[in-house]
């Protein structure tokens, strides 16, 4: 499997990368770890006459924890997320999710920026970023702007990023309380049949706040405000969990594919969400 021919660029600054995007327009695409793009190019489902490899731009790397705000450069790999002690302490749900992505070799190469920017409904980080209330930093010819993860995804592979912009960083608040990233997959390395990201805080015996997002159950990640609201003020008991499952079920829109028919996916989504809530609550 050999991809179509392309010209390779490895700019060492963001300005040069943006310049190449300007020059080559629709013929150019940026690449982070390449573990989504290269397989698509090999299958000739993606043709990229000008490939812009971001690996040499040092400004896109690094994890910074500034008080209660976390910032990850777009080129931070899943492996780096797993190994970073400070991050595991400030937002442990990120490590829990990253460990469930692909396999070790892919995690050395795969980046958070590529994972969120690609717009693949099967990717785990977009839903998690919605759960965390993350902001994405986009840099283009007209300057820098910030877009909320919850407003970023428009359809499968369609996002708020314009073709001349590069997603450079992700930021989100440190988490408090309980967390869980629960994922059902057919085998190691597979995308989710259903996955749930849950963050909960407790005040006394009841849930004070909640955030819930689901993965691969629509053509975009699903942040379900109604599911979260069903838990607030409850003790996250069976009745509350059932209410959250019902609210979530109304928000998702799974399609039938080789991971199963719609009814099966809705069933699995409920089971996964129920497990995630229980685990998150046990950690509050």
């Amino acid at each position, binding site marked *: *499997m*050999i*991809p*179509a*021919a*392309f*010209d*390779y660029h*490895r700019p060492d600054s963001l300005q040069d990368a943006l310049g190449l995007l300007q020059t080559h327009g629709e013929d150019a695409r940026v690449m982070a770890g*390449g*573990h989504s793009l*290269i*397989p698509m*190019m*090999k299958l000739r489902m993606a043709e990229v006459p000008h*490939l812009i*490899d971001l*690996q040499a731009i040092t400004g896109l790397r690094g994890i910074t924890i500034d008080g209660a705000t976390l910032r990850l450069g777009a080129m931070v790999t899943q*492996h780096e997320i797993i190994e970073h002690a400070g991050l595991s302490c400030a937002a442990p749900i990120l490590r829990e999710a990253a460990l469930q992505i*692909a*396999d*070790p*070799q*892919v995690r*050395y*190469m795969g980046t958070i920026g590529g994972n969120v920017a690609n717009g693949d409904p099967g990717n785990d980080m977009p839903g998690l970023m919605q759960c965390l209330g993350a902001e994405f930093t986009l840099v283009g010819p007209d300057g820098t702007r910030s877009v909320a993860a919850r407003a970023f995804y428009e359809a499968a592979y369609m996002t708020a990023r314009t073709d001349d912009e590069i997603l450079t960083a992700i930021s989100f608040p440190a988490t408090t309380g309980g967390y869980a990233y629960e994922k059902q997959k057919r085998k*190691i*390395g597979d995308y989710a049949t259903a996955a749930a990201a849950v963050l909960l805080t407790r005040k006394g015996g009841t849930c004070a706040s909640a955030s819930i997002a689901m993965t691969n159950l629509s053509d975009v990640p699903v942040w379900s405000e109604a599911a979260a609201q069903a838990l607030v003020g409850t003790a996250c008991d069976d009745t509350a969990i059932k209410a959250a499952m019902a609210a979530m079920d109304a928000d998702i829109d799974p399609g039938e594919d080789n991971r199963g028919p719609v009814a099966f996916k809705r069933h699995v989504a409920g089971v996964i969400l129920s497990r995630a809530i229980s685990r998150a609550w046990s950690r509050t």
Partner: protein
Amino acid sequence: MSKKMQITLTVNGEAQDLLAEPRELLIHVLRERLNITGPHIGCETSHCGACTVTMDGKSVKSCTVFVAQANGASITTIEGISTPDSLHVLQNAFREHHGLQCGFCTPGMITRAIQLLEDNPNPTEEEVRFGMAGNLCRCTGYQNIVKSVLAAATEMSAAREAAE
């Protein structure tokens, strides 16, 4: 056909300069241009791990790396870990514990296991299984592969302690 570019790689400690199209995959360059045929092509779709090599301290599937991306990198393949007269601890462990049958996945398995033990010198069985999850074997059922990696880890730890 796109323009060829000058590529510089360090492969198993030796500098290699070659002209290649950027779209060529690292596995093809290793096998077909440099005659380094230890890394195998199994699935060629980044699932099976038979093409695993170490690139700048990372285990990568060389079927999913363009040679242009690897330009400037240091690569280690199964050929670079030992000599026929003096096998690597992991190679001996695989032989000792019957960690292979047909042997097709073995170069990728051992290359991956070396990096795994580099990152985590004293893994539990569960950590070995998790850390080797990117490599598929159709013969052994994995039991003896896991046993081999654990045995090598023990031996390498003992050797490190003895050296200290």
